[in-house]
């Protein structure tokens, strides 16, 4: 954290945030530092000037402590931290999944939940009676009961991988949720949280976008329509900010039924 000056940190996080310095700080400061090394493009302002480092510890709305511990450890294996860039944990993916499960999507928005109930063919898609929130709660409860002696978060990475592979292979029942269904939901949510707009609570500091060179939600590329094979080298931009950095939160986010 040597590269993040105290002044920049206080400016960026506000006095309240700074007095609550959490464990996540080391990780975030670390990834900000990595970014400075990773993208020395002179046209870019320093990372701290573009995006204030997030120093708040995640406040979970949906997950209890045991569930959060599993999710944090699991997403860190699905997208691990690399040499240059943070992984799913550093990108705030657990926060994304938590907010999705606590919100409309978790409650089964746009999920048809009347009968007939029976197992379908693979092409008939999801046919379980669980909302996403119920699915995670049920399956994580079963996992944490099974692993009450050695919680998943306490395993070494190799054991964690083999446990996850076991879930993925299916055939294991987690309180009515087939383990491969849980794994599919977990993986999909992790990818969503890692790559979707930070307005949803993941992709912290637009880390994944900077990693893959995706500039984000620029309103218009009209001036580039007839240009081909050029590299779009711009600072990343979230849906919630305009070119001046002003934040315009869309009341329609997250999706609601029309």
């Amino acid at each position, binding site marked *: 954290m040597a590269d993040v000056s105290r002044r920049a940190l206080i400016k960026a996080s506000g006095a309240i945030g700074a007095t609550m310095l959490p464990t996540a700080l080391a990780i975030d400061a670390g990834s900000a530092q990595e970014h400075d090394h990773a993208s020395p493009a002179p046209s870019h302002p320093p990372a701290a000037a573009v995006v204030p480092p997030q120093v708040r510890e995640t406040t979970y709305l949906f997950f209890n402590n045991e569930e959060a511990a599993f999710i944090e450890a699991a997403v860190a294996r699905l997208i691990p931290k690399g040499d240059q860039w943070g992984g799913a944990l550093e990108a705030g993916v657990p926060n994304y999944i938590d907010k999705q499960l606590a919100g409309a999507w978790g409650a089964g928005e*746009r999920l*048809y939940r009347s009968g007939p109930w029976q197992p379908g063919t693979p092409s*008939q*898609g999801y046919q379980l009676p669980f909302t996403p929130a119920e699915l995670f709660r049920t399956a994580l409860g079963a996992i944490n009961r099974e692993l009450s002696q050695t919680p998943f978060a306490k395993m070494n990475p190799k054991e964690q991988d083999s446990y996850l592979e076991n879930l993925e292979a299916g055939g294991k029942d987690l309180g009515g949720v087939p383990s491969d269904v849980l794994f599919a939901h977990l993986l999909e949510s992790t990818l969503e949280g890692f790559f979707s*707009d930070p307005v949803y609570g993941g992709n912290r500091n637009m880390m994944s976008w900077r990693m893959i060179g995706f500039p984000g939600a*620029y309103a218009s590329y009209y001036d580039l329509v007839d240009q081909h094979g050029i590299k779009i080298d711009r600072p990343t*931009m979230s849906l919630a900010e305009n070119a001046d950095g002003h934040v315009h939160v869309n009341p329609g986010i997250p999706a609601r039924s029309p």
Partner: protein
Amino acid sequence: MAQRLKPVDVVTIGVGLTGSLTALELVKAGLKVVGLERGAPRYTVPDFQSPAIHDELRFSIRKGMMQDNVKEAVTFRNTSDQTALPIRRWASFLPGTGLGGSFVHWNGQSFRFQVADFIYKTHIEQRYGKKFLEACGPELTIQDWGVTYAELEPHYDRFEYISAG
């Protein structure tokens, strides 16, 4: 008591892809048209405004622009010996909703059927002989359309112009 409105020339039931294009053409022809649409009104601004419209999680993943299948589910099966089950989340089949319907999220692609497609029976007979079709038995109900590509071509052309497809 029902309120009686002044009659108009045409009323479209729904203002989706078909209703909106039809209404536009009829209005251009000088008729007075009223469109009835059950879904939400949506306009270029603010509903399709950048950058919010580039929200892939909301629209591509969560299907934010599609019909709410909690209200109107459809069932699906591949073969008649299976039990049709509800499509609980949209996946491959995406019905639109609201003003503009599926017109607002189509891919802008409309493919023309080819010359042979309209005269499929004749085409196959010419190419492989009448015996080829007869050998398939009475269950093969293949027919020519009764309308040719040449007759439809001007309409294809017109549709591609008005739909920008």
